[in-house]
C-alpha cells in the first residue's frame, strides 16, 4: 500500500527461522501443526503477494466437508459448489505459512529490521493526554509520544505503535495492563499426522461425547487429526502406542460410540424438500472417512480455552490475533480471525496516514477495535455455543442437534449462509 510504504517496521521475534529461513524438505511428512485457511484469508495472502509461495509447498484445498455426531441421528455435507465457490478452504502447515510470509517480507521494499530477541519491558508516557501549559519547564518521560521497548538481549528501541501479535500468553498485553475474560474448556486437543491408502479430499468432523475428532486433508495421502477430549483421556491417547492409537482413531471415525446416520435417499428431505432444490450436497449420501493406516508424526497435546481481551487498543499499543482472542479449534477459525485482524489494522493505519493521524493515537486504534471486536465476538459466541451444545449427552438435546443437522443439510439458504460465514465473508448465516 503506497500510503504505508514509508513506515519503518521492527519485528521482534526470537524464532530463529526469521533470520535463517524455514527449511522444508519435500520428502518429509507434514508437520502436525497445521491451519485451515478460509477463502477470505487466501485472498488476503494473494493481495499481499504471499500466496504464490504457499503454492510452491505442500498445501491441500478441499471442497467438501462432512459433519456428524455419535448419535447417528443426522449428518450434514457441505460442498463448495453450494455457495458457488471453488473451495471451502485450504489446509496448510504452519511452517509453510511462516516461510511464505517471510519470503514475501524479504521481497517487500519498505524499511524493516528483525530483532531476534524477546520483549522485556516497555515504557510509555502517562496516558493522560492533557497538556498542562504550566509544565513547559519539565522534561517529559521517554521521548514524547514514543514507546521505549527493552529487549531481553539488552537492546532497546523506540516506536510510535507497538502491535502485540505474540500469541495467547502475550507479553505485550501483560505489559499494557489489558485484562482478559474467558474460561478453560475442560478439554485438551491431540494433534498428529496420519497416512491413508488413498488421497483424502474431504474435511471430516465427528462430534463424540467427549469432544469432536477432525480429519483434515493436508496433501498427498496425508491427513491431520485434531482430536478433542477430556484431559485424562487425552493424556492416555498421547502415551499409548502408535498402533493402538490408530485403532482408536479408526474406531472413532467409524462405528465407535454410535451408529452411522442414515443417508437421505434420492435427495428426499421430507418437509424440507421444497427448499433444497438447488444445492448439490443435499442429495449426497453419508460417507465413511478413509481408513487411517499409519501414524507418521509425534502426537502433540495442548489445552483448549476461550479468551478475549477486554480491549484491543490502548495508547500506542494494539493487540491482534491470539493475543487478543483464542477460540476452540472445532471450526478452524482461530488463525483466520487473526489474519482478519492484521488486515483490518493495516487498513485502519493506511486510512489514518491519509489524514495525517499519529498512528499511536487511541482514537484511530479504537476504530480498528470496534470493527474487529464485533466480528470476533460474534464468531466466538457461535463457536462457544457449538462447543457447549455438543458436550452434553442428553436425549432431547441429542434430538435437537439431529434436527439441526437435518435443517443445515436440507435448507439451502441456510447452508449457503453457513458456508459463506465460515469462509470469512463477515455476514452472519441467518440475517443476510
Amino acid at each position, binding site marked *: 500500500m503506497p*500510503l504505508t510504504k514509508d513506515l519503518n517496521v521492527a519485528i521482534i521475534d526470537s524464532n530463529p527461522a526469521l533470520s535463517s529461513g524455514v527449511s522444508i524438505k519435500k520428502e518429509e511428512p507434514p508437520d502436525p501443526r497445521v491451519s485451515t485457511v478460509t477463502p477470505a484469508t487466501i485472498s488476503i495472502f494473494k493481495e499481499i503477494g504471499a500466496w504464490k509461495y504457499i503454492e510452491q509447498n505442500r498445501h491441500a484445498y478441499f471442497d467438501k466437508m462432512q459433519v456428524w455426531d455419535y448419535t447417528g441421528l443426522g449428518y450434514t455435507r457441505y460442498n463448495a459448489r453450494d455457495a458457488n465457490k471453488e473451495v471451502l478452504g485450504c489446509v496448510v502447515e504452519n511452517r509453510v505459512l511462516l516461510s511464505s510470509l517471510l519470503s514475501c517480507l524479504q521481497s517487500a521494499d519498505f524499511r524493516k529490521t528483525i530483532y531476534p530477541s524477546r520483549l522485556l519491558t516497555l515504557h510509555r508516557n502517562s496516558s493522560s493526554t*492533557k*497538556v498542562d*501549559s504550566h509544565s513547559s519547564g519539565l522534561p517529559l518521560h521517554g521521548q514524547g509520544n514514543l514507546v521505549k521497548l527493552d529487549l531481553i538481549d539488552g537492546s532497546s528501541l523506540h516506536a510510535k505503535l507497538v502491535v502485540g501479535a505474540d500469541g495467547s500468553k502475550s507479553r505485550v498485553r501483560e505489559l499494557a495492563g489489558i485484562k482478559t475474560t474467558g474460561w478453560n474448556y475442560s478439554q485438551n486437543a491431540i494433534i498428529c499426522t496420519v497416512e491413508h491408502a488413498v488421497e483424502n479430499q474431504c474435511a471430516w468432523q465427528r462430534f463424540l461425547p467427549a469432544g469432536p475428532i477432525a480429519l483434515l486433508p493436508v496433501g498427498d495421502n496425508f491427513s491431520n487429526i485434531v482430536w478433542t477430549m477430556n484431559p485424562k483421556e487425552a493424556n492416555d491417547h498421547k502415551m499409548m502406542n502408535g498402533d493402538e492409537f490408530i485403532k482408536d482413531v479408526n474406531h472413532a471415525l467409524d462405528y465407535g460410540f454410535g451408529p452411522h446416520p442414515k443417508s437421505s435417499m434420492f435427495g428426499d428431505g421430507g418437509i424440507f424438500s421444497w427448499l433444497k432444490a438447488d444445492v448439490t450436497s443435499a442429495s449426497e449420501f453419508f460417507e465413511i472417512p478413509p481408513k487411517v493406516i499409519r501414524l507418521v508424526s509425534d502426537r502433540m497435546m495442548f489445552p483448549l480455552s476461550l479468551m478475549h481481551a477486554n480491549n484491543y487498543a490502548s495508547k500506542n499499543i494494539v493487540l491482534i490475533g491470539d493475543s487478543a482472542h483464542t477460540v476452540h479449534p472445532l471450526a478452524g477459525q482461530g488463525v483466520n480471525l487473526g489474519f482478519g485482524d492484521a488486515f483490518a489494522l493495516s487498513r485502519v493505519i493506511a486510512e489514518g496516514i491519509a*489524514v*495525517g493521524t499519529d498512528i499511536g493515537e487511541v*482514537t484511530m486504534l479504537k476504530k480498528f477495535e470496534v470493527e474487529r471486536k464485533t466480528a470476533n465476538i460474534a464468531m466466538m459466541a457461535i463457536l462457544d455455543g457449538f462447543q457447549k451444545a455438543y458436550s452434553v449427552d442428553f436425549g432431547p438435546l441429542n434430538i435437537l442437534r439431529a434436527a439441526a443437522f437435518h435443517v443445515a443439510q436440507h435448507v439451502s439458504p441456510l447452508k449457503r449462509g453457513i458456508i459463506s460465514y465460515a469462509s470469512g465473508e463477515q455476514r452472519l448465516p441467518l440475517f443476510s
Partner: protein
Amino acid sequence: MAFKLPNQLRALYTATNYHHHHRILSPLAGASQSFVFSLRRLFADVPPLSDPSSAPPPLYPHSTKTSLAPSSLNQYELAKFAAIAETWWDSEGPFKPLHALNPTRLAFIRSTLCRHFRRDSYSAKPFEGLKFVDVGCGGGILSEPLARMGATVTGVDAVEKNIKIARLHADLDPSTSTIEYCCTTAEKLVEEQRTFDAVIALEVIEHVAEPAEFCKSLATLTVPGGATVISTINRSIRAYATAIIAAEYLLHWLPKGTHQWSSFLTPEELVLILQRASISVQEMAGFAYNPLTGRWSLSDDISVNFIAFGTKNSQ
C-alpha cells in the same frame, strides 16, 4: 430569493451592536449575559471585556489602536476558548466532538487540495513544499495532521494559552515540531505581508465580528491561484436545533454559549463575501453525524455544518 441576500448581507455589515442582536435573536439572552460576567472574573490574562451595554470597539486595521485589540475578533469569543484551553488534547474532554470531526474535515481538505495543487493522492506526504496557515488553530488539532502530510504549517490563534498548548503538544512528535505557532491574528499577518499557498480557517468565522473583513484578510494571505478553505455552521433553523440546542444544551458537547445563531453564515452569504474578496468557491460539502455509530462523514447536506474550498483569482 436572490434579492434577499444583499439585504441580509447589509444587515450583517451594519451589525454594530453585537449585543443588540444577541438580545433579540437568542432566546437565552439572560443566561448568556451572566456567562459574560462570570468569565470576566475568571480570566485575567484575556484583555478586559467591554461593558455589555456598549458597542464593542471598532475593529479594523485603519483604526489607531493597532497594538492590543485583535481586529475582527471578539473578546467575549476569545474568553470562551481560553476557559477550556488545557483540555484541547484530551480526546474524551470538552473537545471530543472536534476530535471526532477532525478526520472528516481532513479528508475534504486532502481531496480538494491534492486535486488543486495536482499532487499524488496516494502519497503519504502530498503537501510537501507547500505553505499552509491554520487560522484559529486552537491547540493545533488541524495543524499537526497537515504537517504530517508534508505541509510547512503556520498556526495562528488569538488566545495565548492555546498557542502554548499547541507548541507543547507539537514538540512531542518530530514530524510536527517544525510547525510555526504565533499568537496573532489574520490581520496582523496581512500587515507582515505573509502569504501562503493555502489558507485554512475552520470553525472560526462564526466567532468573528466582521466576517467580510475577515474574508478579505484571508484572501490577502492567499497567493494568487492559491486555496482558501473555510468551514462554519449554516444559519438555518435546523442548525439552531442541532448545533445549539442539541449540542450545547442537550448533549453537552459544547459549553453553553459557544455559538450564537446570529453569527452563523448561510452558504450563499459565505460565497458572496468570498467572491467580493476575489475568492471563487469551487466545492462545498456538509458534515453529517450518525448517532448510531458516533461517526461523522462528508455529505451533500449543507444545512448544518459545511465546509467550502475556494481559489484566489490569479491577477
